[in-house]
């Protein structure tokens, strides 16, 4: 039996350590891992937990991230609770297998420490890897700080393993800013955490020899489409279970999570929509603007990036005059994803209720996004709101050296 770890009521953990502790408390059966900055400490710490007797499960070191996720798929199909961690290039190498895992409905938990994608090579945080995973059929939860990385990693097991979901779940946190910044964490005890998640209940496991099954079947035009549609339906319907798990977690800890987080939106005239550590920066900026300049600014943040909270976003934006969607990933030939999702959500309400929507690309490769820059963007949105149309390019680059870069303008007549 695994040793239990005695934890203080308040621990000082960074996001990586918090995620590793959550994996330990979940008593994962198999972790197949290949280290990559900035998520290395998750599997490194987990490996130390294994070596020191805190974990009964297997820890498999493999030769690449493709092999890591492949090992996870095999172990999950065999009937075990499975998890791993990765970032950036490692995530990119996993992509092929990410689709396999979700298609096979294997509830693997992947802790992703967001980092930029090369080229140019860069180890700092942006959301290029998170966005690369957005069509892979995984549930994607986003932590804005280390406490949330811990909480969401625990909840990821309970969500993904629910018999009505049975889908893999990613828990994202920002490279370095969250993963390497030590913060006060309120953990659950080992017993409480495990009791909250519960025992793993295998479904159609390959190690049930009396009922042999084939995983990874080939289906052509006669079957493939129906299977993908069923999978999409399961992902869309997972919102019910996600909400239920968030509620159960609040009852246990007092910490409330929502698929779409909103801050100061009750009376907000303008808003920014963001992911990751930028959310907290934006909250600080919005509070300052409210106090110093009386601007009614709010912040919106998808806790659940996939399935995307379209209905909730539509509801919170009705009545807002201008919203800026901040995308920390270069969309390369298109508008940013958060801009696209926002416009998609808003297209379904009457035109006179729709806010103006702008798009900022920012923070690529770990470029700092400051409170001052957040305030500048918020003031600019207030300017659009006051004149009733977007006075700049719709897509702009924030915090970029050189001449102003922007694309796409409003058509006003």
């Amino acid at each position, binding site marked *: 039996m695994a040793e239990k770890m005695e934890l203080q009521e308040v621990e000082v953990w960074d996001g990586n350590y918090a995620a590793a502790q959550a994996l330990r408390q979940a008593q994962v059966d198999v972790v197949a891992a290949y280290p990559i900055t900035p998520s290395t400490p998750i599997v490194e710490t987990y490996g130390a937990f294994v070596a020191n007797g805190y974990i009964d499960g297997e820890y498999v070191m493999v030769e690449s991230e493709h092999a890591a996720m492949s090992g996870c798929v095999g172990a999950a199909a065999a009937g075990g609770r499975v998890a791993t961690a990765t970032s950036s290039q490692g995530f990119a190498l996993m992509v092929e297998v990410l689709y396999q895992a979700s*298609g*096979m*409905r*294997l509830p693997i938990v992947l802790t992703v420490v967001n980092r930029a994608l090369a080229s140019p090579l860069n180890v700092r945080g942006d959301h290029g890897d998170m966005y690369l995973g957005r069509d892979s059929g995984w549930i994607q939860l986003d932590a804005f700080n280390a406490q949330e990385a811990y909480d969401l990693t625990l909840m990821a097991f309970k969500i993904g393993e629910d018999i009505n979901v*049975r889908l893999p779940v990613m828990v994202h946190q920002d490279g370095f800013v969250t993963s390497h910044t030590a913060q006060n964490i309120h953990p659950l005890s080992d017993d409480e955490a495990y009791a909250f998640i519960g025992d793993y209940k295998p*479904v*159609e496991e390959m190690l049930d*020899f*009396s*009922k*042999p*099954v*084939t*995983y*990874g*079947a080939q*289906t052509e035009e*006669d*079957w493939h*489409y*129906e*299977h993908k*549609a*069923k999978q999409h*339906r399961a992902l869309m319907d997972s919102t019910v279970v996600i909400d239920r798990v968030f509620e159960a977690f609040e009852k246990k800890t007092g910490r409330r999570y929502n698929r779409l987080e909103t801050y100061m939106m009750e009376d907000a005239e303008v808003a920014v929509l963001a992911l990751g550590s930028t959310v907290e920066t934006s909250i600080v900026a919005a509070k300052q603007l409210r106090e110093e300049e009386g601007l009614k600014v709010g912040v919106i943040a998808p806790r659940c990036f996939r399935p995307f909270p379209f209905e909730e976003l539509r509801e919170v934006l009705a009545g807002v005059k201008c919203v800026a969607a901040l995308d920390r990933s270069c969309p390369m030939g298109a508008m940013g994803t958060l801009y696209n999702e926002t416009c998609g959500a808003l297209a379904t309400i009457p035109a006179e209720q729709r806010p103006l929507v702008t798009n900022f690309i920012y923070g690529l490769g770990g470029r700092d996004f400051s409170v001052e820059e957040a305030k500048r963007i918020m003031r600019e949105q207030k300017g659009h709101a006051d004149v009733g149309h977007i006075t700049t390019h719709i897509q702009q680059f924030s915090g970029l050296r050189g001449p102003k870069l922007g694309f796409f303008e409003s058509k006003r007549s």
Partner: protein
Amino acid sequence: MKGVLATDKRGVRELGAEELVGWDEVTHGVVLNSFDLEVENPAFSRPEERPYSDFNSYTATVASWRVIKPVYNRDICIDCQNCWVWCPDTSIISRDKQMLGIDYDHCKGCGVCVEVCPTNPKSLLMFGEAEDPEAALAQWPEKKKKAKK
């Protein structure tokens, strides 16, 4: 060799002839069950005794893929099991170490069995798919004499 037992579902349908159902009825995670029922210790039962499902390749036939086929000559075979070991499609049917014949529902005509057959002449030879087995046996070659040193 269909019907080693009366319940044998070997090759009862063309591959791809399963009933098509809607997205709400397809299996979870594209998982395909081998059997319709649970089977205790399936490793200790013979294929023809197992309740294979319509999604197991055992119940499908791929005979139409083949252009040449192996023909088996019982008179020469020494039951060495080489062909049974090497067949990539488990299409050599053998019981109690005795070769019974070829599963033509799953054999794809690769010829490996002929290649590994050690007898002289061979106990398995490739013939055109349309060749009558009796006619094939009638034209079986004679034993080859060893070349003198």
